[in-house]
């Protein structure tokens, strides 16, 4: 399957790019298999992932996604798919619909419609500043300065 052939360079590329941030690509099977029985159990996987992604708690879903032969543990081969599986779980929330609110549907893996990419025109908007003293209208920077937008939250 095409996906399989793409997996290895994809995982390597992700590993390189994420080396400075999450370490899920580093430390392999040997690190996860704490009791060295040749397979990674659900609890070993949870320990392993929690040590690398402190705010990931979809361990049950991750095990289900990775344990393709359903024997309750992960072989080295099943374990190899962890990065794609985690990313799939993280990217599975349809952010465009409900922005991650509790009404959102978990595990929705529909590709994002109209997802923005390089070369697209940035949607204009006007928002108030935190201190309430000013407003920013994205359009006012046209032909003036580039704008870096960082979307995020406390948690």
């Amino acid at each position, binding site marked *: 399957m095409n996906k399989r052939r793409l997996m290895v360079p994809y995982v390597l590329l992700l590993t390189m790019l994420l080396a400075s941030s999450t370490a899920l690509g580093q430390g392999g099977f040997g690190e996860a298999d704490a009791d060295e029985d040749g397979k990674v159990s659900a609890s070993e996987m949870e320990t392993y992932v929690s040590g690398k992604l402190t705010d990931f708690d979809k361990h049950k879903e991750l095990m289900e996604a990775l344990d393709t032969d359903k024997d309750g543990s992960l072989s080295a081969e099943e374990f190899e798919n962890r990065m794609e599986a985690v990313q799939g779980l993280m*990217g599975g929330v349809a*952010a465009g619909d409900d922005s*991650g609110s509790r009404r959102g549907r978990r595990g929705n893996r529909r590709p994002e419609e*109209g997802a923005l990419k390089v070369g697209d025109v940035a949607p204009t908007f006007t928002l108030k500043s*935190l201190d309430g003293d000013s407003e920013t209208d994205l359009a006012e920077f046209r*032909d003036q*300065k580039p704008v*870096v937008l960082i*979307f995020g939250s406390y*948690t």
Partner: protein
Amino acid sequence: MNSVGTIEQMFQDYKDVAEFRMVYINEAHAADGNWPVEYAREKGINEHTNYGERCTTAQMLLDEKQLTIPCLIDGMDNAVNEAYKAWPDRVFLVRTDGVLAVAAARGPWGFEPGLEAASEWLAHFKETGEEPELPASDKEEGEESDSQDDDQR
């Protein structure tokens, strides 16, 4: 949010040549949301029910991480978040012609590559005064694999 030190540093380095705005949106890991984390429970951070709550939590972030980057608050309609498909966190760079030069992947996987891409763009811009050319291919800056979302089952 991760990488806040990097964000502040980038702001300090390039604020003379570019505008920076943090856009505070709804929580990534609210205690009563889909992706709760322990410290959200400890700090009682739930989904914002009104604009004031969103502002309060945003202020917490700025205070604790000592960020001076200007911060905007998304309305409770989450309109800007949705327009940019930004949740949980995401990095963009808008050129002076209004076109996106950086549109990183959402979430932790794309965030740091997005910051790096923005840094490189800004470094070039600051040195040469010219905005880098957009890449010729469809590949996004700061996103390592296109159509990875389309591969999701």
